[in-house]
């Protein structure tokens, strides 16, 4: 086993995601603590992506026809081959849709310790990783021991700039291993255009589970109208079919950065925060004073969202002379 850190690059539709660079920044710092180097494995991808990995000490590239698009089976096999050949101390994988298909599988098959949903990793004789769990309400630090481990890293855990660098090292090529072909990629489906593009609005009134029922979304819509903004939502409301997918903010929804983000009845799970923490001003209204949303909001109000919505709308309309 080496003392190196291996970061698994992630890309979709020709672009490396921010998590790759965030992990690279974390990985470099961790490698420094361990006295090893920080490598990136690029599975599939292209030369342009390899050229953006200048912050890495080395790059391993596994490429082939079966790796052109993400495939949980072939990408997991490629990663396993690289980990087998390089024997890194720590493998960093994004806590993302693709990363979830790789991390647990690698940990089980290679007999490595695993910490998921991580926001921090500390190196030394033993690795300690801090995971954010219970919807962001608790941080738990796990001792991952002195052997090899897998760390799944939450998006936004570290600044991406620390991992950015042009002119990456010349990649070392590895041939992809053969796989049984039990999973077959058929194609990508783009989301349908919605009635409202929430990424273009300066004011978003975002509703969460606290809204209670589909009919009650109307109060948020009235407020959004008074503010000249649009209504967005967190995942549970979209899953319940109360609003279209195009209104979803978060990990599997859209990333928004409005001037004002008014979060109503949103607890602030990490998956949601990932999509909205770029807003210039975040104002959270929630009856739970311990809700994690208050940790990222600039302003907070512990009150019933319906009372706040109705009073706000009334007062704004009064000012506007409606």
């Amino acid at each position, binding site marked *: 086993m080496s003392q190196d850190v291996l970061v698994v690059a992630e890309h979709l539709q020709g672009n490396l995601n921010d998590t790759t660079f965030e992990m690279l920044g974390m990985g470099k710092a961790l490698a420094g603590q361990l006295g090893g180097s920080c490598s990136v494995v690029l599975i599939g991808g292209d030369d342009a992506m390899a050229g953006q990995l200048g912050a890495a000490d080395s790059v391993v590239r596994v490429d082939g026809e079966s790796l052109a698009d993400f495939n949980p089976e072939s990408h997991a096999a490629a990663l396993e081959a690289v980990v087998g050949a390089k024997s890194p101390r720590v493998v960093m994988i994004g806590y993302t849709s693709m990363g979830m298909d790789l991390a647990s599988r690698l940990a089980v098959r290679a007999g490595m310790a695993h910490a998921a949903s991580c926001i921090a990793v500390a190196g030394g004789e033993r690795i300690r990783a801090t995971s954010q769990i219970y919807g962001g309400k608790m941080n738990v630090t796990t001792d991952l021991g002195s052997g090899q481990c897998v760390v799944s890293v939450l998006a936004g855990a570290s600044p991406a700039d620390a991992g950015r660098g042009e002119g990456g090292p010349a990649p070392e090529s590895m041939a992809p291993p053969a796989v049984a072909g039990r999973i077959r990629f058929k194609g990508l489906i783009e989301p349908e255009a919605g009635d409202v593009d929430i990424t273009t609005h300066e004011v978003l009134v975002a509703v969460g589970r606290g809204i209670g029922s589909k009919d009650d979304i109307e109060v948020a819509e009235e407020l959004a109208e008074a503010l000249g903004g649009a209504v967005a939502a967190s995942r549970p409301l979209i899953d319940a079919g109360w609003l279209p997918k195009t209104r979803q903010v978060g990990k599997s929804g859209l990333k928004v950065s409005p001037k004002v983000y008014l979060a109503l009845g949103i607890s602030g799970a990490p998956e949601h925060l990932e999509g909205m923490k770029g807003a210039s001003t975040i104002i959270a209204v929630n009856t739970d004073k*311990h809700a994690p949303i208050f940790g990222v909001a600039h302003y907070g109000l512990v009150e019933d969202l319906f009372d706040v919505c109705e009073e706000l709308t009334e007062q704004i309309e009064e000012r506007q002379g409606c």
Partner: protein
Amino acid sequence: MNIIVLMKRVPDLVEDLEVDDTGKALDSEYLKLTLSEFDDHALEEALLLKESGGGKVTVVALDDEGVDKMLFTALAKGADQAVKISGAGNIDGNLQLARIFTQVIGQQPHDLILTGVQAADDRDGQLAPTVAALLDVPCIEVVTGVTPGEGQVTLHKEYAGGVLAEFEVDLPAVLGIQAARQTPRYAPVSKVRQVQDSTTIERVADASGSVSSEFEVVVMTPPETGEGAQMLTGVDELLEILETKGVIG
């Protein structure tokens, strides 16, 4: 198609969570457990698959104080068989849980194993890929819709920004369900009671020999919120902020 749904009860996140005296775990005294919301979606997807193409749905969970109600509710919704695993002791992670589940899965006919994409207490990875790796079968996480086929299923996997990838997967397979094709159905209390009187839950003793992880929790704390939000006292102050930000005149 034989479908197994793995179900887990997790702390209800609507409630306040407190750390216990050890500083390493949640205080269980007032802890309210509830079915993991994604497992509810996994059950719904399983029921939809059964309704469209026939088959049998078996729900499996660890035995604990509230598990009977959860399993009877699943039966009332349309599951055909419920199994609870007793004697597993304290579970401290998904690897330990997956070893227990795979032992029971091995005793049941299965084509498809569904469970939630994640759960609130996932500390050492997700259940679906961990079970799949132990069984050496294919797995896909973040699935939002499954269509049955001959010896395979076609499904959608969700990426960031609402982009979907379509995959075909050979059976048997494990899928981590993000969202069922429709909102999980509701079982009226009267139906649950009726099922409770007419059906039994099978009890299986854990014989997996699965033990706690050697990788222990060092400390559990509520996240530091830094400066945190500047707390406002009422709507008037909120209006002032909106005015300062130029959102209202």
